[in-house]
């Protein structure tokens, strides 16, 4: 085809323009039209998805809020050798930058400084109030007289972590590391190490939930796909009704069921299967989180599985059985490989939703069921350490990306099917 074209020259339309150009022109209008049609969606995704994620990522390393407040102090601070207290010059610059600061800069900066060392907040607040009365130097002694923290070298060293406009501090914090006062990376104090354990716990709970969802969801979906219509419709309603029920209602219903004096324990005690003092502790722990999340996320496993299984023709299995395979062998060799796209889709979906779960662990998690989402909420609302929230969120995002990549390598993303 190509050869004939080159040998006879370009094909022309009736008005003498090459067909290629003419086609392109006609297509261009179509392309523009198509682009305009998706433009609202594109803008929507950009504004509601990419911009917030970008903002989150920049917040996780941004340390400017303090640099703009003490620019001069940080300049002279660089000359300090970190042996013994800083010179009068550093004190003096700090003094004037605190005294002359306007508006809420000091307040915002002190929140940030408090992450590096607890105590900065009240120190700056008190100093700002008392500095007004000091008219002339030397400032070092007068500042130490106002609060002895000004004479504590640890506070000055803590400032050193904040000199750069960007910081890895939040990411370090999110994996139980920190900068020490000499800006070396060290492990967090043992009694403050929480995030690594939380990461592991979050992974463990998500994996367990995915596994249980698969174990429960597979037979259900199989039934849904193979039963005659009138039964499968009823079963489908049983799957969908909880799906349409509010998440909170379902969580609270489980609390009623599982607590120590709840329905399940009461039934067991009443039927003498369990002694009154040995009631199961099924609520306010990790077990509760796994049970409740499994129930809540089950439809996300069943629906993709069902839609894939529906397309597996029953004749395949019949053929296998006809050729002498045992039912188990036939299932293993024929049905399961065919249902893999649904299994992948379901597992990925459940795992992704589970790993960022917040409300259920909050309500039923008790002391050992708290996941990463709960810490993000805590820092977001209570400590206002949004940098740490952002870094925790970014790590979650990175983990999902890695998982997705690994999945693509091992199973292949074209093997995923939602219907």
């Amino acid at each position, binding site marked *: 085809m190509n050869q004939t074209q080159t040998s006879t020259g370009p094909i022309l339309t009736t008005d003498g323009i090459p067909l290629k150009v003419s086609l392109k022109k006609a297509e261009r209008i179509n392309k523009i039209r198509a682009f305009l049609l998706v433009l609202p969606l594109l803008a929507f995704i950009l504004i509601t998805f990419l911009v917030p994620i970008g903002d989150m990522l920049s917040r996780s390393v941004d340390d400017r809020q303090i640099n703009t407040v003490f620019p001069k102090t940080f300049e002279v601070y660089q000359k300090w050798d970190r042996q013994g207290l800083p010179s009068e010059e550093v004190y003096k610059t700090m003094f004037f930058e605190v005294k002359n600061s306007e*508006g*809420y800069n*000091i*307040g*915002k900066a*002190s*929140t940030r400084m*408090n*992450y590096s060392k*607890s*105590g*900065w*907040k*009240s120190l700056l*607040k008190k100093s700002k109030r008392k500095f007004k009365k000091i008219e002339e130097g030397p400032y070092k002694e007068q500042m130490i007289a106002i609060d002895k923290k000004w004479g504590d070298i640890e506070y000055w060293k803590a400032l050193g972590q904040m000199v750069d406009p960007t910081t890895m501090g939040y990411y370090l914090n999110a994996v139980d590391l920190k900068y020490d006062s000499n800006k070396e990376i060290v492990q967090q104090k043992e*009694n*403050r*190490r*929480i995030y690594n*354990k*939380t990461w592991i*716990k979050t992974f463990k709970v998500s994996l367990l939930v995915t596994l249980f969802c698969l174990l429960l969801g597979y037979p259900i979906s199989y039934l849904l796909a193979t039963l005659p219509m009138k039964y499968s419709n009823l079963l489908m309603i049983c799957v969908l009704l909880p799906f349409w029920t509010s998440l909170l209602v379902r969580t609270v219903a489980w609390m009623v069921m599982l*607590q*120590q*004096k709840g329905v399940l324990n009461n039934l067991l005690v009443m039927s003498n299967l369990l002694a009154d003092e040995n009631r199961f502790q099924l609520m*306010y722990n990790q077990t509760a989180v796994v049970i409740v999340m499994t129930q809540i996320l089950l439809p996300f496993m069943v629906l993709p599985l069902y839609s894939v299984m529906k397309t597996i023709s029953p004749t395949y299995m019949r053929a296998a059985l006809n050729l002498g395979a045992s039912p188990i062998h036939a299932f293993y060799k024929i049905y399961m490989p065919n249902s893999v796209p649904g299994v992948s889709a379901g597992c990925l979906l459940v795992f992704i939703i589970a790993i960022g779960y917040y409300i259920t662990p*909050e309500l039923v998690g*008790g*002391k*050992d069921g*708290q996941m990463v989402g709960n*810490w993000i909420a*805590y820092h*977001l*609302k*209570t*400590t*206002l*350490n*949004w940098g740490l929230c952002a870094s925790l969120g970014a790590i979650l995002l990175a983990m999902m990306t890695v998982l997705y990549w690994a999945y693509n390598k091992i199973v292949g993303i074209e093997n995923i099917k939602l219907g």
Partner: protein
Amino acid sequence: MKKAIKVAFFGLISMAFVGSAIADITFVSWGGAYTASQQKAYIDTYDKGSSITVENYNGGLGEIKAQVEAGNVTWDVVDVLPDQAITGCDEGLFVKVDQSEFINDMVVPPVSDCVVPQIFWAYTAFYDKAAFPGKKPKNIKDFFDVKKFPGKRGIHTWANALIEMALVADGVKASKVYEVMSTPEGIDRAFAKLDTIKDHVVFWSAGSKPLELVSSGEVVMALAYNGRIGAAILSEGKNFEYIWDATVLEQEYLVAIKGGNEKEALEFMAHASTAESNAEQAKYIPYGPMRKSSINIIKKGEPWFITDSGNIDILPHMPTTPKVLKRAVIGDPVWWADNGAEVSERFGAWKGN
């Protein structure tokens, strides 16, 4: 016909403008019996024209900071804890208010320039009388003594007040608690004491939960906000008993959010912080007013608390009577504003391990 539509259209627009001369206020508080008391005492009695919408939140400055930073402020007046009042005011999230009206009538001086007084509330231990037919727990030591009083304890999911209570249970004088807490050894000591009940605790985060836990028998004792306990006893006839020991007294304030309907918000706050209003709130929930003169109004007006079956004396349920104050810890919001994050992370590690 077209003209008629035009007239109607502009009529509507101008009505909208007239209507917005007095902006409406969104009032945000903690929900439950507490918000209900504010509704009756402050909102139902307010007649300055703004109509007030009530919303609930679970504390923290996160939502407020997000609203102010995004320039999309939908909350106008918020009920906040003292350490948040300090941080929010410092960071410029709240409007500064004129405090001359009440500054000399306060039990403790206000924590920042942005607040008007509401009430004192307290973390208090309590139990259901039915749970202890014999000897009853009398002080915070008993709360931390699982040998003497076996059974689970309901405690909240954050560190405030727990550290203080643990130290008092370990023998520190209530008035010296923050001195001890300011040393690393003091914090270690508090956590060591918390370790002794660790395997016997159930956590709660919503204020109504401890009442539920104790009512259902899930725990034998719990810490709760004293007003919630009082409301359950007074209005629902629950058989609860307070343990008025190492009660941690906390302050509660109203603030106006910067960028909201500031003028109307401040007007409403002025109304909600008069001595009469503060006393009025105690008719519906047993929290102690922060203004000295409110307490006198209540004393004169006893029986003050309104229930369906007639009024009841409220002072025995107040966390600010001399009897309770003698054994109470006065919460120090400045300490928590400074050390809250660090202690909270350690508390989180303690919870999770």
